[in-house]
């Protein structure tokens, strides 16, 4: 696992290696083991390495023996062993046992179509020095990040935006439309990022850059058409388990020890159990515990540890600690967040790293692909009730929603009905499942200044998203539509990045996600929705598939999403508010930045300081406004590419000779 960066002169102008060095200097956390830069005329490739497979021989940028193809690559191809065998049979010769070299040869053999054969998580750039063309690609689910921009006639790409900003004279401006997406969908949606002119290569996409032209194309997307309508439940459960076992098995391929995150929920328990029961890998597990019992899942974690007999360690996370590290968290997420939930994951990856582990397996992706989220359940109940709005009994089901949320549970009956009220005409709305969430979040727009409002103008994020839905969307059932919205957007843009890659790679730890093996994803998408949520039993098929493998308490427990203390991490009686918070939310600073109305923010802060229990919206307001201010501070006002340069490893430079025949 690694960090990549590079530049390509759109008019064949040469690249200065020092500029590529500046880019990779920002990515030390992604790859502390090695740092190198290759320049070939108008192209520069930079690489930071976290050595995992073939530790001795895997240096990058790596080339084919004839030095025609060069690659800089971040990720893992889990089926590289099988691909290598296939390529050897076709006459390819290998110098290393590294997946990087397999990827190079696979590209040599199949060109851009090679990505269809990959099972893994990747972002890479391959430079064809003969054709003077670059090919870039990102994995199907968006596990590994890839950003790009154009500046001063150069095409620039990198694993993280900070590397793009390290290149001289790249504009750093907040994108007002992205802010508006954030205060609707909880994240900017790719290809947009929080910064104007900086784009993300969306999951399942590749791109080519050649002769001054950038072309982006989609090579994969999930499809929810039911494949075998008559499929028997038992057969489906067996097939799911088989796929998961194999997905886990190939994700344990590494030349370094592998750990697992254990939340105490179903998904991470399943992964831990599969490692334990179906492989011989010695296993260490890690978890977060909270001082506040409403977030803490230690009891369930203990059950799993006892049942599966793993060697386990946890960190105790406090609200004050979250408040303290939040600026570092945003430096890594490079986007604002409405929850502080990424912060404990950042602390956890530090523990893992301190214990000498570079790789962890986690249960990420299961809720999206196998139907675990409460938003799916909520939509199902609303649909059921909406079909018969006068029913007295149907809305009683609303109490089954969000059992872990005190505010919702203590809601008067009449209000619960009013909040979730639905009528049949809403059914046709493609965003039926998500509109209540988006509308609630959008209430935070009342904090916008008139200046920000006018920068956003007539832009409507929901209209834009509607125009970009896949053609098949309308043919999918409502449950699958909701799954698609989570899988295509929030999963890559928040779960796998802000809470995933960025938090683990912040401490040089690589996450691997068996549920996101594309074979599992495709199989799950092809199942009828009632296999995923049977009546109101979430992740039904998964529970059925893993029945005897996990502790009964975890099998039976009600779903509790992973959450962390939000506003109380910064404000409250007895809490010393960190100085940076006072500064960034001060009237002067808010006025200068011009995004949020100081008087309104002040009222929200005053409310938070009282220590009264804040609602979802107010908590999201505190985290969202503060993190946006932090983003502006760290990436626009006071950006420094050389934060950690002084204690960084030396850079290896190589320059290819100028080619006469060009």
């Amino acid at each position, binding site marked *: 696992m690694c960090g990549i960066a590079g530049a390509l002169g759109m008019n064949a102008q040469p690249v200065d290696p020092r500029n590529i060095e500046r880019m990779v200097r920002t990515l030390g956390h992604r790859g502390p083991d090695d740092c190198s830069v290759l320049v070939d005329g108008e192209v520069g490739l930079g690489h930071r390495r976290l050595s995992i497979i073939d530790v001795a021989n895997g240096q990058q940028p790596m080339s084919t023996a004839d030095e025609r193809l060069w690659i800089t690559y971040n990720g893992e191809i889990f089926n590289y062993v099988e691909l290598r065998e296939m390529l050897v049979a076709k006459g390819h010769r290998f110098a290393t046992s590294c997946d990087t070299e397999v990827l190079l040869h696979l590209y040599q053999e199949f060109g851009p179509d090679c990505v269809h054969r990959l099972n893994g998580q990747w972002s890479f750039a391959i430079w064809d020095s003969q054709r003077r063309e670059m090919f870039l690609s990102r994995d199907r689910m968006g596990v590994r990040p890839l950003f790009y921009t154009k500046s001063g006639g150069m095409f620039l790409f990198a694993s993280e935006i900070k590397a793009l900003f390290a290149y001289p004279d790249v504009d750093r401006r907040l994108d007002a439309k992205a802010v508006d997406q954030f205060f609707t969908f909880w994240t900017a949606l790719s290809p947009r990022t929080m910064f104007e002119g900086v784009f993300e290569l969306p999951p399942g996409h590749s791109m080519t850059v050649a002769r001054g032209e950038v072309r982006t194309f989609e090579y994969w997307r999930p499809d929810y058409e039911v494949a075998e309508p008559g499929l028997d439940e038992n057969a489906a459960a067996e097939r799911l388990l088989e796929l998961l076992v194999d997905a886990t098995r190939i994700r344990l391929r590494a030349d370094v020890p592998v750990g697992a995150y254990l939340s105490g929920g179903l998904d991470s328990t399943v992964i831990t159990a599969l490692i334990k029961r179906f492989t011989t890998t010695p296993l260490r597990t890690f978890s977060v515990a909270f001082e506040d019992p409403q977030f803490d899942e230690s009891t369930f974690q203990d059950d799993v540890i006892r049942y599966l007999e793993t060697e386990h360690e946890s960190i105790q996370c406090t609200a004050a600690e979250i408040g303290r590290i939040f600026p570092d968290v945003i430096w890594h997420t490079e986007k604002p967040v409405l929850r502080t939930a990424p912060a404990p994951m950042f602390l956890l990856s530090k523990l893992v790293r301190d214990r000498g582990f570079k790789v962890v397996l986690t249960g990420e992706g299961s809720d999206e692909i196998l139907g675990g989220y409460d938003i799916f359940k909520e939509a199902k109940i609303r649909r059921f009730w909406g079909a018969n709005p006068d029913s007295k009994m149907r809305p009683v089901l609303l109490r089954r929603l969000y059992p872990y949320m005190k505010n919702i549970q203590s809601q008067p009956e009449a209000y619960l009905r009013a909040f979730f009220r639905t009528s049949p005409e809403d059914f046709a709305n493609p965003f039926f499942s998500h509109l209540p969430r988006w509308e609630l979040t959008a209430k935070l727009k009342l*904090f916008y200044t008139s200046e920000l409002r006018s920068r956003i103008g007539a832009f409507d994020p929901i209209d834009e998203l509607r125009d970009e839905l896949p053609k098949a969307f309308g043919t999918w059932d409502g449950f699958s539509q909701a799954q698609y919205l989570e899988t295509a957007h929030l999963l890559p843009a928040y779960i796998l990045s802000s809470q995933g890659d960025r938090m683990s790679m912040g401490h040089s730890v690589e996450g691997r996600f068996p549920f996101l093996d594309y074979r599992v994803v495709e199989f799950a998408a092809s199942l009828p929705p009632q296999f995923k949520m049977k009546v109101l039993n979430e992740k039904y098929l998964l529970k059925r598939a893993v029945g005897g493998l996990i502790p009964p308490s975890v099998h039976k427990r009600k779903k509790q999403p992973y959450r962390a203390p939000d506003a109380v991490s910064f404000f409250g009686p007895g809490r010393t508010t960190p100085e940076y918070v006072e500064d960034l939310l001060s009237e002067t600073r808010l006025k200068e930045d011009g995004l949020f109305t100081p008087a309104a923010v002040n009222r929200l802060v005053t409310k938070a300081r009282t220590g009264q229990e804040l609602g979802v919206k107010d908590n999201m307001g505190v985290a969202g406004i503060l993190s946006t201010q932090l983003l502006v501070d760290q990436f626009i006002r006071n950006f420094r590419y050389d934060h950690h340069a002084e204690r960084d490893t030396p850079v290896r430079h190589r320059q290819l000779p100028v080619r006469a025949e060009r």
Partner: protein
Amino acid sequence: MQNEIRQFVIDNFLFGQSDRQLGNSDSFLESGIIDSTGVLELIAFIESKYEVSIADEELVPANLDSIDRVSAFVERKLQAKSAGVGQ
């Protein structure tokens, strides 16, 4: 009293941003002013400010869903209290 309630709603739910006209008869639910926690905050405010206690069956939009409705409801509660009934 109507002004006190109005001020509470504007400060607490709109964070003082009253530029978008809030009518005294506007539904809190329809305008999205009050979310799932908001109604609990509103109840806590009424109970502590006016020293009345609100029974579960009174927690309905008919009593609580606009500035007008809340003031009328509180008036009724206060009258009942001074008459020594309903507590």
